[in-house]
C-alpha cells in the first residue's frame, strides 16, 4: 500500500506544472479565449509534440504512451491549475470512449491519429445523469442509416477533425458512430459560454448518412454510461487544479494586501476561510487519486463497474463542491479586486461553475450514492 506518487509520477507533475506555468500564463489564457480559434493552436501543437499529453491514455500499439489514469489526472490537474484552454479534455474523453469500443481497424486508426495530434470530440447528448435524453437518433432508411437530432455541450466540437457521436437506434439501444464534421447533414456551431476557457459546440444532424464502417459500437449503453463516469473523473482532475489554484492565488493576495496596518492574511477570519479551502481541496484530491486508481483497477479487471461508478459519483460531488467553494471564497478573500476582469480569480470562478454541473450536479451525484445505499445498486 503506497498511496503516493512514484518518482516518475512526481516528475510528470513537476514537468507539467513547469511547462504550463511558462505557456499557459494569465495573458496567454485571455488571448486564447478571445482568438478566432478559441484556443492557442500553437500551444496545442507544442503539447502534442513536446509533452505528448494527448497520448497518455492511448495504448502503445497505436502510437500512444499507454500510461494510466493517475498520470492523466496529474496532467489534467495541472491544466486546471493554469486554466489551460486546449482540447486536452476532449481528446482524453474521446480516447476513453474509443478504448472501451470493440477492437476494429477504424478504432485503431482513430486512436493513432489522435496520438498524432488530431482533435476529436465526443458528442454524447445533453450531459445529464440519465442517458434517456440522448438527442441524436440513428434510423434505417431503405438504403442507409441516417443520424438526426442535436448534441449539445460538445467540448471543442468546432475544432474536431472527427466527432464521436452517441445515437439511439430503432431498438432504443445506444450506438457510437464516428462522423466527419464536413460531411453532408452535419452542422457544427461554436456555443458562446460564460466560462471561455472550456469552449463548447452544438452539433446538429440533419439526415446525415452514415455507413457501417463508421459504426464503432452497437448496444453501447454500458459503454456510454462507463464513458460518462470516466469523463467525470477527467473533470474532477480539472476541478482539483482549479480548487488548488484558487486557494494559492487568494492566500498570496491576502499576504500582500494590508489593512488596519496588518496583512489581511493575519486575520483569523481570512485564515479560517483559507484552512477550510485547503481541507476541501485536499479531500477532493484524495478522492481524485482514489478514482484514478479505481479506473486502472477496473481496466485491469480487478474491480467491477459499480466500484468505478461509485468512485466517479463521489469524486465528482466532492471536487465540484471544492472547486466552487474555493473559487467563490477566493473572490471574497480578494475583496473588491476579486470582481474585476484584471484578476484571475474570476476566471477560476467561472471555470468552477462550468465544471460543477457539466456532467451532472453534485446533488445528483449524491442522490446516486443515496440510491445505492438506500435502495440498491449503482450504475
Amino acid at each position: 500500500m503506497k498511496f503516493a506518487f512514484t518518482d516518475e509520477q512526481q516528475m510528470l507533475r513537476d514537468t507539467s506544472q513547469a511547462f504550463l506555468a511558462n505557456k499557459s500564463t494569465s495573458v496567454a489564457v485571455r488571448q486564447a479565449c478571445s482568438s478566432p480559434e478559441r484556443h492557442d493552436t500553437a500551444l496545442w501543437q507544442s503539447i502534442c509534440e513536446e509533452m505528448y499529453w494527448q497520448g497518455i491514455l492511448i495504448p502503445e500499439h497505436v502510437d500512444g504512451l499507454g500510461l494510466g489514469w493517475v498520470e492523466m489526472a496529474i496532467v489534467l490537474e495541472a491544466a486546471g491549475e493554469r486554466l489551460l484552454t486546449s482540447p486536452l479534455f476532449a481528446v482524453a474523453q474521446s480516447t476513453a470512449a474509443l478504448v472501451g469500443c470493440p477492437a476494429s481497424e477504424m478504432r485503431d486508426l482513430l486512436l493513432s491519429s489522435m496520438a498524432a495530434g488530431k482533435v476529436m470530440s465526443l458528442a454524447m447528448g445533453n450531459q445529464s445523469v440519465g442517458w434517456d435524453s440522448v438527442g441524436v437518433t440513428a434510423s434505417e432508411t431503405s438504403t442507409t442509416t441516417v443520424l438526426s437530432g442535436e448534441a449539445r455541450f460538445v467540448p471543442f466540437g468546432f475544432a474536431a477533425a472527427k466527432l464521436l457521436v452517441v445515437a439511439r437506434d430503432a431498438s432504443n439501444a445506444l450506438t457510437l458512430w464516428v462522423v466527419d464534421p464536413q460531411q453532408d447533414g452535419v452542422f457544427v456551431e461554436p456555443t458562446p459560454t460564460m466560462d471561455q476557457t472550456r469552449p463548447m459546440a452544438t452539433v446538429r444532424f440533419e439526415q446525415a448518412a452514415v455507413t457501417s464502417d463508421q459504426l464503432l459500437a452497437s448496444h453501447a449503453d454500458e459503454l456510454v454510461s462507463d464513458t460518462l463516469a470516466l469523463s467525470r473523473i477527467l473533470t474532477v482532475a480539472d476541478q482539483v487544479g482549479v480548487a488548488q489554484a484558487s486557494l494559492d492565488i487568494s492566500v498570496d493576495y491576502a499576504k500582500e494586501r494590508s489593512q488596519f496596518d496588518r496583512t489581511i492574511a493575519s486575520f483569523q477570519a481570512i485564515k479560517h476561510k483559507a484552512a477550510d479551502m485547503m481541507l476541501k481541496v485536499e479531500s477532493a484530491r484524495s478522492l481524485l487519486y482514489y478514482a484514478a486508481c479505481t479506473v486502472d483497477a477496473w481496466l485491469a479487471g480487478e474491480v467491477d463497474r459499480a466500484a468505478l461508478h461509485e468512485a466517479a459519483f463521489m469524486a465528482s460531488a466532492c471536487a465540484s463542491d471544492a472547486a466552487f467553494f474555493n473559487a467563490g471564497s477566493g473572490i471574497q478573500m480578494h475583496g473588491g479586486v476579486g470582481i474585476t476582469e484584471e484578476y484571475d480569480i474570476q476566471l477560476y470562478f467561472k471555470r468552477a461553475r462550468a465544471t460543477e454541473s457539466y456532467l451532472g450536479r453534485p446533488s445528483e451525484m449524491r442522490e446516486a450514492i443515496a440510491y445505492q445505499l438506500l435502495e440498491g445498486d449503482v450504475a
Partner: protein
Amino acid sequence: MKLTFTAADEQFREEVADWLNDNLRDEFADIRYRGGPGDEHRFVDERKAWERRLADGRWTCIGWPETWGGRAASIEQQVIFHEEYARAGGPGRMGHIGDTLTGPTLLAFGSEQQKAKYLPPIRDGVAFWSQGYSEPGAGSDLAAIRTKAVQDETSGQWKITGQKVWTSLAHESDFVFVLARVDRDSSRHHGLGFFLVALDQPGVTIRPITQLTGTAEFNEVYFDDAVCDAEDIVGAPGDGWKVAMGLLGFERGVSTLGQQMLFQTELDEIIRIAKSNGASRDPDIRQRIAEAHIGLKTMRYNSMRMLSGGEDGSLSREAMIYKLYWSSWHRNLGKLAMDVLGPEAELIESGPYELNKLQSLFLFTRADTIYGGTNQIQRNLIAERALGMPKEPRGPGK
C-alpha cells in the same frame, strides 16, 4: 500509486483476525464494541484484564521495537491491526495512552532507567497512563501552563503543585505525565518540564467531571506537593515543551482506519433506521446520508495518503486536515442520527438518564470538535503551518 496491501500484509491481517476471533469471546464477549469514546468509563476491570490477554498474545505495543517486547510492526501492519481490531469489535483500549504516547515518548527522549522502569509494565498490560497537559487556564493556549515543579536541592526530588483538567480515565490509571513549569520566571513554552508522576500518592486528588451525557470519563487532577523522583523527569528541565510536542507527532495516524470502521458501524445503523422508519424518503436526509458516506470514504483516502507520507514523522498537509475533517464529520453524523430518528430521538430507554448509543453519539460528538485542539485552533494551525499565513498578534483584546 497502489491502494492494495501486499500478500505478506494480508497474511498478517489473517493472523490478527484469527487471534481476535479466538480470544475476544467467553469472559470477554460482553466488552465487544464497548469502552469507546463516550463509553470509556464502562467495563474498566474487564478491559484491564483484556489488556493482559492482549499482552499474552504480543498484541500490545506492536509498533515498539522488539527489544522492548514490541513487534516493530510497519505502518501498514499497525493500520491492519487497528482495522481488524475495530472489525472484531475490540473494546476501547485502556492501554492506549501508554502504548501510543508514553511509550514512544520514552523511546525517543527517555533515559535507559526510565525505559527499563516504565516500558515493561505498559507492554505487559499492567500499568495504565493518563495525560496531564490541559489546565483550567491552559486550554487552546496550551503554553499558558501554571502548574509548577520545584526541585529539592538536597534530595533532587520534584514537588508538583497545580491543577490539570480533562484528564481521561485518571481515576482508573496508575500514572500521569505532567507538563509543569520548572522555572518560575519563565513564560509560555520556555522553562517547562515533562514529568512521570504516580497517581496513587497523598499529593494527588482526582475529581470526575460529569458531562452532558451524565457520564464521567474526564477528571480534574489536583497536585499539592505531589512527589516525582529526580530520575522521572523526561529530558532536561526546560525541555518539556520539546518532549510534549514530539509526542504529538508519534501517532502518525495508524489508528485512523480503525476509527473509521467504528464510524462506519454508526453510519450503517443510521441508514438501517432511515430505511425502516421512512426517513430515507426525505430528499434532504438522502443528500446528507450520501454526504456522510462520501465523507467517510474521503477520510479513508486522506488517511491512506497520510500513512504513505514521509517516514520522518513530519506532519503532511493531509495529516493537518485530519482532525478538523473527522471531528466535523462526526458531529454532523450525530445530528443526522437525531434528524433520522425525529421525535423518537428524545426518548430515554432506561434508568434515570441512561442514553442509547445514538443519543450519546449526538451529545458526545459536540466534544469532538473541541478536545485535542478545537476546530478553530486546527484552522489556525493549517493556515500558519501549511499555508504560511502569519500568526495573529497576541496580547489583550481591546
